C-alpha cells in the first residue's frame, strides 16, 4: 500500500534539516524560496540536503530531478510524490 504524506508534515520535517544544514535556526521555509535566498546554499550543501532528505523519508532522487528543482515548493512536491510512490 503506497504511503501518503501531507504537505504541512513535509514542511515540518524539512525545517530542522534546513536549519542544521545552513546554520540558520530562524530560517522560515516557503514555496517560493530558492537557493539565492539562503546564505550558504551552494552545490555541496544542495547535495547534502538531497542526501539527508532521501535518508529521512526513505526515497531516492535521480540526477535529473536534483538538477530540475527550482525552489522549496518543487522540492516539497517531489518529496510528496516520491513518498506516495514508494
Amino acid at each position: 500500500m503506497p504511503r501518503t504524506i501531507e504537505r504541512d508534515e513535509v514542511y515540518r520535517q524539512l525545517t530542522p534539516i534546513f536549519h542544521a544544514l545552513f546554520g540558520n535556526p530562524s530560517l522560515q521555509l516557503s514555496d517560493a524560496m530558492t537557493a539565492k535566498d539562503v546564505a550558504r546554499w551552494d552545490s555541496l550543501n544542495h547535495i547534502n540536503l538531497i542526501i539527508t532528505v532521501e535518508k529521512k523519508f526513505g526515497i531516492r532522487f535521480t540526477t535529473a530531478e536534483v538538477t530540475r528543482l527550482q525552489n522549496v515548493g518543487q522540492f516539497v512536491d517531489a518529496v510528496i510524490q516520491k513518498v506516495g510512490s514508494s
Partner: protein
Amino acid sequence: MLFNSFKFLILFLPPVLVVSRRLRGQMLLFWICLSSFVFYAFAGHFWFLGPMLFTTALDFFLAQKIGATEGWKKKTFFLVSLCGNLGLLFYFKYSGFFLRTFFHIGNADSETWQRFNLVMRILLPAGISFYTFQTLSYIIDVYRGEVIPERNFWLFCAFVSFFPHLVAGPLTRHDQLIPQLERIAQGGTSPRWRAGVYLFAIGLAKKTLLADPIARIIDPMIAAPGAMSPLGAWLSVFGYSLQIYFDFSGYSDMAIGLGRFFGIELPQNFNTPYVATDPSDFWQRWHITLTHWLRDYLFYPLVMMRGKSRGSTTRVVLSLVITMFLAGLWHGANWMCVLFGLYHGALLLLYHGFKDAWNTLHHLIRRSLNFFLVTMGFLLFRSGSLQVARRWAGKLAGHAVQPGIPLGFDPPILRLLGFVLIGLGIACLPFCASKYDRFERLGPAWQVVFGLVTVFSLLFMNYSSRFIYYQF
C-alpha cells in the same frame, strides 16, 4: 574576427543586424547561421568550421535517434554522440598533452619529440570547449528524456553557432537559447539597442582600457620572473588577477550586449566575483555558466551514481575533486591548469571543513582573504610551468632578489600600481555584474561619461590583443 576590432564593428555587425531586422522564419535562422559561420571562419582558420559543423550535424542526427529509440539502441546512439563530441575535443585539445605526459617527452630536441611533433602541432579550433559542452548538455538532456529532440536543423544550428556566444561563451543551454531563437524566428528580432550598446561598451572598456594595458605591462615581467622586484612580483600577480577578470568578463558583457541586438538574452556569466566572501561564493560569481554546467552534468551525477558509497562523505569529496580536476583540464591542456583546478578543489573542501570558523571573521576580512587566495590560484594558472610558478612565488616571498634589481617605483611599476588600484575599485562596482540593467534610467551626465569612455575604448582598440578565453 574579434569583437574588439573595426573589422567586426564596421564591416561585419551592421550588415548582419540590418538584414536580420528584415527577415523572419527559416530565412532568419539561416541568416544567423551564415553570419555566424563567416564570423567563426575569420576567428582563426577557415577549417575551424569543419569540426563545429560535424559536431552540429552529428548531434542533430543522433538526438533524433536517441529520442525515437529505447533500450540498448538508445544507449548506443548516446555513446556514439559522447565519443564523437569528446573524441574531437580530445584530439584537438588533449592528444599532444597526453602523448607528452605518457611518453615523458621533456626535451624538445629529442628524437621522440620530433616523432610526435606532427601531433603536437595540432591547432586548437577556437571555442571548441564551449560548443562541445553546449551540445553535450543537449544530448544528455535528450537522453534523460528532459527535452524533445529539435527537428528544425537551422534552429539547432543557430543554437550551436550563434556568433555572440560561439567562441568564448557564455555557455548557453538549449532551454535558454532555442525558445528565444524560435520566438525571433516567428516575430522577428526585437532589439534592446540601448541596453545592448551600454553593455557592449562596458565590455569593450574592460578589455581595451583595463585588461590590455595591464597585459602590456605584466607580460614582459612574467616572461622574466628572475628580474622582478618583490613589489613588481606582487603587483604583477594582482595585475594578472584583474587582467583575466576584465578580459573574460569584458568578453561576456560584449557577448550579452550583442545578443540583445537580436532581442536575445544570454545568461549572466559574472557577478562581481572579487567581492565573494568565500571560495564557494566565488564559483557562484565567476564563469557562472561553466560552474552550473559542471555542477549539473558532472558533480551531481558523480554523487548520485549508484553504488555502495552513494551519498557518503567520501563520495561527495571524491566527486568534488574529480570535478575540479576536470574543470582545470577544461581550462587548458597542461599540468598547471590541472593544478589550478585542484587548488580550487582544495579551497572548496577547506572552506566547507572550517566554514563555521571562517564565517566568524568580519566580511571585509573574508572578502580580502578570498581575493588573495583566488589571486594565488591565478599565479598557477598564468605561470605555464612549475619552474616559473616557483620563481614568481619566490619573488613574492622576497627570495633571490638580485643585487642590481631596484626596489621598484619605476614608471611601469607605478602605472601598474595605478591600474591595480583603479581596477580593484571598478571590479567591485555593480555595473560589472554583466546583468546591470539600469542603463535606460541613466542621467545625462552619466551618459556623457559613458560616451567618453566608449570613445577612448574605440581609440585604444587598435592595440587590442586576443581574448584569453579564446584558447579554450
